[in-house]
């Protein structure tokens, strides 16, 4: 075909002893959105980094149009019209949104031009970013960071646009807006690569789907015109998925005496007003809401980061409200943060150091002179349980793929053996199989004497794990979904304030 804009042949990449990519081929056509799927650690991001010049292949050939192109650096890629939205955000928090958008190689001039600023404003508004361009990036949420990164790439007016998990921190409505923009670009002939672990999303937007497994192309055998999710999963894993997940046998809240519970009464804080929230042991309670609805504030208060104006809190461990993080951790509260890069991990330390950090450092459970051999062994067991794809527990966490890093965040908090788990989007960027595994682990954890509060940007996660969902809007609980009503459709409607039925 002669409308191939960008192609890769026999791309091979090693990291030390590990073969991350082994002879991958890829063709990208004009006006095509190519979905790429694969399990965590399959090599998707590595391939994208090579396509965008951020990494160099050990072997293989890249062809841009009709010419062999050596992508020596990202600068070359930008210049060749290839824009890249990477999985790990590459932004500058102290700089303003405008500066972040403007500061890409190839732009000349002393200061941003008026035209550029206008274009930037239009672009960010289309993506749904609701802040002035002069706002420092640091004050924005993770989702907004992701939008800025996408806007930066779009403003480059690329011929080829690569999006590596662009939606992992986005809410459904933002995803919708993005897809609309991508379709527009497709009309104008831009070729795109779209990576996501939300397979529905990929199927919805992509013209074609490529599956990568263990650094190799896998043929996608489809019986119909378009592949189905089970077919994709089979290709990704090399076998049929273990369990097509069934929603849990939901419990009804039993506020029996003697069981551990979390109790919140008359909680008042900036942007938050809760009259009563009770969660008992064995329950997984979903807290859902759109951006700024107050869920994060609840988590922060329970974790001792934020101080409420008033209210009574009783933690499952029996302790009163914690006033700082050490106290919270010591009282059995665990907070699985969504921002793994900044809050979740110490990226340049080894996996076993990361896994043991809470247990050994915050809680001191391993004594003043922890045994390294034992720590490594525990970390190995934990990582095997959650399915972290790694070479050894001695490698730095930064060398893991994004999804596998997320699993390490999960692992380190499990080590705390907490009685109250605050899960803030714990499955961000985790592949479908691992997600099933994490659903199961969360359910199992709930079987012990724990209280679990769960938040996710993916409505499907609530359906898959929680017993009931409290819907937040503007700092108030406006709805409670359980039983029959706990399905994706109702949930999204309720979050958007469209509760037709009575609560």
């Amino acid at each position, binding site marked *: 075909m002669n409308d191939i804009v960008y192609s890769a042949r026999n791309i091979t990449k090693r990291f030390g002893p590990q073969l991350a990519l082994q002879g991958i081929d890829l063709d990208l056509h004009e006006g095509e959105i190519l979905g790429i799927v694969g399990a965590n650690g399959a090599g998707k991001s590595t391939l994208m980094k090579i396509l965008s010049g951020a990494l160099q292949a050990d072997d293989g050939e890249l062809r841009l149009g009709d010419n062999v192109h050596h992508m020596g650096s990202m600068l070359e890629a930008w210049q060749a019209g290839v824009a890249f939205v990477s999985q790990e955000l*590459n932004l500058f*928090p102290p*700089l303003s949104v405008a500066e972040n958008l403007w500061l890409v190689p190839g732009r000349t001039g002393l200061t941003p031009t008026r035209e550029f600023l206008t274009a930037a404003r239009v672009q960010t508004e289309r993506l749904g970013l609701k802040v002035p361009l002069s706002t420092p990036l640091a004050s924005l949420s993770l989702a907004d960071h992701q939008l800025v990164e996408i806007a930066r790439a779009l403003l480059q007016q690329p011929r080829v646009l690569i999006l590596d998990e662009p939606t992992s921190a986005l809410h459904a409505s933002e995803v919708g807006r993005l897809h609309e923009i991508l379709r527009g670009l497709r009309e104008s002939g831009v070729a795109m690569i779209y990576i996501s672990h939300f397979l529905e999303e990929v199927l919805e937007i992509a013209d074609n789907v490529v599956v990568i497994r263990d650094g190799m192309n896998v043929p996608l055998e489809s019986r119909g015109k378009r592949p189905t999710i089970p077919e994709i999963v089979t290709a990704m894993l090399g076998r049929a998925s273990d369990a097509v997940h069934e929603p849990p046998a939901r419990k009804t809240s039993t506020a029996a005496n003697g069981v551990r519970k979390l109790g919140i009464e008359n909680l008042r804080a900036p942007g938050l007003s809760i009259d009563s929230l009770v969660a008992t042991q064995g329950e997984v309670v979903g807290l859902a809401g759109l951006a700024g609805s107050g869920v994060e504030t609840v988590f922060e208060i329970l974790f001792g980061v934020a101080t409420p104006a008033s209210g009574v809190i009783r933690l499952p461990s029996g302790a009163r409200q914690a006033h700082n993080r050490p106290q919270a951790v010591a009282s059995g509260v665990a907070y699985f943060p969504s921002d793994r890069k900044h809050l979740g991990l110490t990226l340049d330390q080894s996996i076993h150091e990361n896994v043991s950090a809470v247990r050994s450092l915050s809680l001191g459970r391993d004594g003043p002179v922890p045994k390294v051999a034992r720590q490594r062994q525990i970390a190995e067991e934990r990582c095997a349980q959650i399915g972290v794809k790694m070479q050894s527990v001695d490698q730095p966490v930064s060398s893991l793929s994004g999804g596998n890093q997320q699993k390490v965040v999960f692992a380190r908090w499990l080590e705390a053996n907490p009685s109250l788990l605050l899960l803030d989007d714990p499955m961000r960027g985790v592949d479908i199989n691992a997600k099933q595994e994490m659903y199961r682990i969360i359910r199992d954890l709930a079987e012990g004497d724990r209280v679990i509060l769960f938040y996710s940007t993916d409505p499907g996660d609530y359906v898959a794990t929680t017993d009931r969902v409290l819907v937040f809007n503007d700092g108030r609980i406006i709805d409670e979904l359980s039983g029959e009503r706990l399905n994706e459709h109702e949930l999204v409607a309720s979050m958007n304030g469209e509760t037709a039925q009575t609560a």
Partner: protein
Amino acid sequence: MLPSRLKRFDEAGLLFALIVMVLAIGILHPEFFDLGSIKTLLRQSAFVGIMAFGMVYLVSMTEIDLSVGGIYAVSATSAALLIKAGIDPWIAVGLSFAIGAALGALNGLVAVLLDVPLIIVSLGSLSVFFGLNLIISDASPVFGMPRDHAFFVIFGGEFLGLPSPAWVLLATGIVMHFLFFRTRFGATVRAVGSNRNAAEFIGIRVGLTRILATSLTGLLCAISASMALAYFRAVDPAMGEQKELLVIAAVIIGGTSLAGGSGTVLGAFLGVLIITVIDSGIVFFGIDTNYARFVTGCVILGAIALDRILKRSRAASSHMQSHL
């Protein structure tokens, strides 16, 4: 309008600390408000301040240059030697600017080639530059400048009632502030400082940016040195010694964060003034030599504490406001 601007004005705490100090000295010792006293203060501040502006760029890139005093010394000595050799002072000083910028660039180049932080390189080049200074000056002072030449008259003297170096300080300050916050180069410096990996990742020429910043710092050292030469009309081999800590102190007291990505030229300016005023205060209060250093340290800590406490309360109050 004004109060809200003031609230966003990050250096208010430092300015307040400075004003408190100035008033404390001036009310008890009105001679301090003499024009002469103010002039001395400004001239002193200029020598350190001009260098500090360059260091703001480096610190905001999470870099520290310990060799600024050495660059200052070599620039001053080479200008003086060239003038003695009969070269026109304007040209000699121009050449010394080139030398300063080149030494700075050399620092940056070595740091980029070895891929190490600038502080490591400057630990070595600090000695190299001061050593070079001893070699070219033969460890002797350089005297005998043509004191009637326009260069010495203009920059060694006053302009509109203030010492010329004070005007140069002001001018470089404005330029450096503008460069830092309003230009592509400044934004690149801040970007590299805030997230070097990301900057590299998106294809910003990090090495080039580092070299440009060190070279700019070198140039500013040379400018500062030329002001000192114009005023002192002679150069001593000990010139520039121990200046690095002074310069770093000004930048850091000024509020430029070592975490990178942000910096304040205005803060460095206030930092320099605070340090200089403390020295004046010690003299005006006639503090015993044995106690002077102790008091200096306490006042520095006090100024820092005042600044941070004000910042925090300001942050808290603006937080409160937003709740209304």
